[in-house]
């Protein structure tokens, strides 16, 4: 298998420090040993490998960029590289880790009470508990501000009513971070699996992220204790902060997928013989595709890396994150399509990783802010005019 590191024209490795390289190589090795031999089967059978969750915890993948409660305390670049390596394996596995770290542990650490942190962070970090994040609803995707889920105080409790949709890890979660309207604005709640009136239904028939669980969360007069609210949450900006964290990881993760489909395409092109004993890699049209992929991956790496350095310096704006998510996921999706073309008929079967990545990226392209919404976020940044909610 071709290693991109052997084609490192821009000496990208030299831009990383020793810990960052060691983190990347450790996670890569784990993915090669534990994910790649089985991922086609998991995706085909639509199973999520629950048994790997404690392994991820032991390795330190979950909440890797936080340092509270004995977590590894990695910088943003090393965290990004973890996502890259996980998604080189599969977008579904990376999604699991993104949700656990950026969408569940992050809000608990940022806005949770000491009691909530002590209860959940060690369990989530070690992979002994799984979390999910409920913001999107069946009728409110790009516009979460329209959410209908409500929480009302009732004596010593909160009563939740509403529905969340497209929730990664939903039915396997021990705890859900649920966002709901209240009399005091949008607030976050920790809803435990056993809460009365809380149920989940999996989305079936997915052609994408098949090695990942996606569910609806249903709250019917769901009663949760008064202290289930994340005390520091006050409005829609809280879940949006979470999304910025997750999107940052996706900007790196998508590169991992692109590297996987590029490497597969390059190997295939060099070994597939047509027209008089020559590999198809000798064809100009095939070379053009390979060059496009490589070119965009190199640019995407520089983008992700600078974004990571900015994040570590506390200077990464959410618009900068949008730009990297938008670009790198698009690049990964295009790479998967080109790799699929280069593989010809072989590109559609699961002997090769290409079609799985291609289908996965259809999700990644429109989750965590669709490509188009990120375009509009950047459009607003440039013009000052929010096109999704234009002024009268």
């Amino acid at each position: 298998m071709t290693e991109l590191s052997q084609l490192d024209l821009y000496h990208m490795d030299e831009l990383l420090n020793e810990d960052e390289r060691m983190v990347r190589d450790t996670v890569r090795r784990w993915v090669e040993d534990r994910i790649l031999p089985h991922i086609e089967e998991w995706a085909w059978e639509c199973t999520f490998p629950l048994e790997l969750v404690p392994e991820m915890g032991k390795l330190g993948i979950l909440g890797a960029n936080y340092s509270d409660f004995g977590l590894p305390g990695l910088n943003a670049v090393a965290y990004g590289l973890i996502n890259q390596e996980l998604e080189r394996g599969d977008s579904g596995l990376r999604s699991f880790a993104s949700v656990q770290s950026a969408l569940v542990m992050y809000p608990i650490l940022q806005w949770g009470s000491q009691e909530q942190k002590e209860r959940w962070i060690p369990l989530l970090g070690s992979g002994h508990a799984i979390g999910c994040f409920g913001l999107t609803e069946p009728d409110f995707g790009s516009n979460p501000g329209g959410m209908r889920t409500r929480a009302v105080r009732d004596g010593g409790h909160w009563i939740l009513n509403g529905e969340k949709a497209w929730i990664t890890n939903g039915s396997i979660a021990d705890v859900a971070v649920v966002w709901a309207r209240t009399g005091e604005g949008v607030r976050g709640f920790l809803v435990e699996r056993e809460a009365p009136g809380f149920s989940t239904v999996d989305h079936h028939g997915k052609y994408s992220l098949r090695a990942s669980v996606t569910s609806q969360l249903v709250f019917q007069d769901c009663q949760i204790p008064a202290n289930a609210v994340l005390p520091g949450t006050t409005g829609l900006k809280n879940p949006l902060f979470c999304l910025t964290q997750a999107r940052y990881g996706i900007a790196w993760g998508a590169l991992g997928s692109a590297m996987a489909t590029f490497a597969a395409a390059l190997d295939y092109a060099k070994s597939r013989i047509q027209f008089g004993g020559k590999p198809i890699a000798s064809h100009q049209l095939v070379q053009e595709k390979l060059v496009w992929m490589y070119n965009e991956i190199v640019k995407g790496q520089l983008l992700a890396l600078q974004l990571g350095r900015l994040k570590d310096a506390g200077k990464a704006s959410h618009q900068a994150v949008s730009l990297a998510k938008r670009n790198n996921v698009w690049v990964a999706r295009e790479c998967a399509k080109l790799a699929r073309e280069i593989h010809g008929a072989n590109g559609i079967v699961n002997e090769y990783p290409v079609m799985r990545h291609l289908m996965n990226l259809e999700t990644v392209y429109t989750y965590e802010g669709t490509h188009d919404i990120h375009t509009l976020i950047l459009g607003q940044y440039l013009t000052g005019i929010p096109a999704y909610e234009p002024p009268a």
Partner: protein
Amino acid sequence: MKCIVCMTHVPDTASVIKIGADGKHIDESGIKWIVSPYDEYALEEALLLTESKGGEVTVVTYGPQRAEAGLRECLARGAHNAVHIVGGESTLGDSLAIAKVLAAALKDREHDVVLCGIKGVGTDNAQVGPMLAELLGLPHVSGVTKIEWSDASIVAHREVEGGYEVVESPLPAVITAQKGLNEPRYAALKGIMAAKRKPVEKLEVGALGLDESALAGVEATYSVRSLELPPAKEAGKIIQGEDDPKAAAAELVKLLADEAKVF
């Protein structure tokens, strides 16, 4: 238990090897360096042992500056201390020279056991461990796939052709680890961060009372005349058999007998 693990930093086994311009070394550009896989078994055994019986693990390497990354990897997995004897380019492949350097570094360090990989996957000589044992005046067991530890002795299984041999040895001893001894762990990401704060002791060969230029010169026991890549594989032969399978089978048998000489 005080454990010393000897580690060598080698090209990744997945590397594409090119011969260097002098025809005697490999071209190191673009090579990714790793802890030799057999040394990972040695390290894992030392970590398991100290986790169950207490003690500490010191990893020692004799290699150029870049070998420090290998030591950091071992520290990240849980080794307590690291010793880097800087050098080794000129004595590469000379097992006796390497064993002399390691022995000089180890002789005054307390150790209940010294563990090495059975061989470094770089030059594949497999002699360093036994030579080191001789120089230290210790018994050695090589190619070990299982160890039962007691306080002052071990019972070890070593691989021999078609089976295994059970050997008892007093401690301290030198053990070389074979594949199958254990399942090496991954470095925990937290361990990678902790490794930054662990000490790496740097030593010059001269400080051990040895002269590296003599080891590589008048005292050398090994020299490389030339390095060559294996010849490129010839294209396979395909016998078309769709029209006349009988004739194709006969042709195959003939080629296997006359050309491939398999019988």
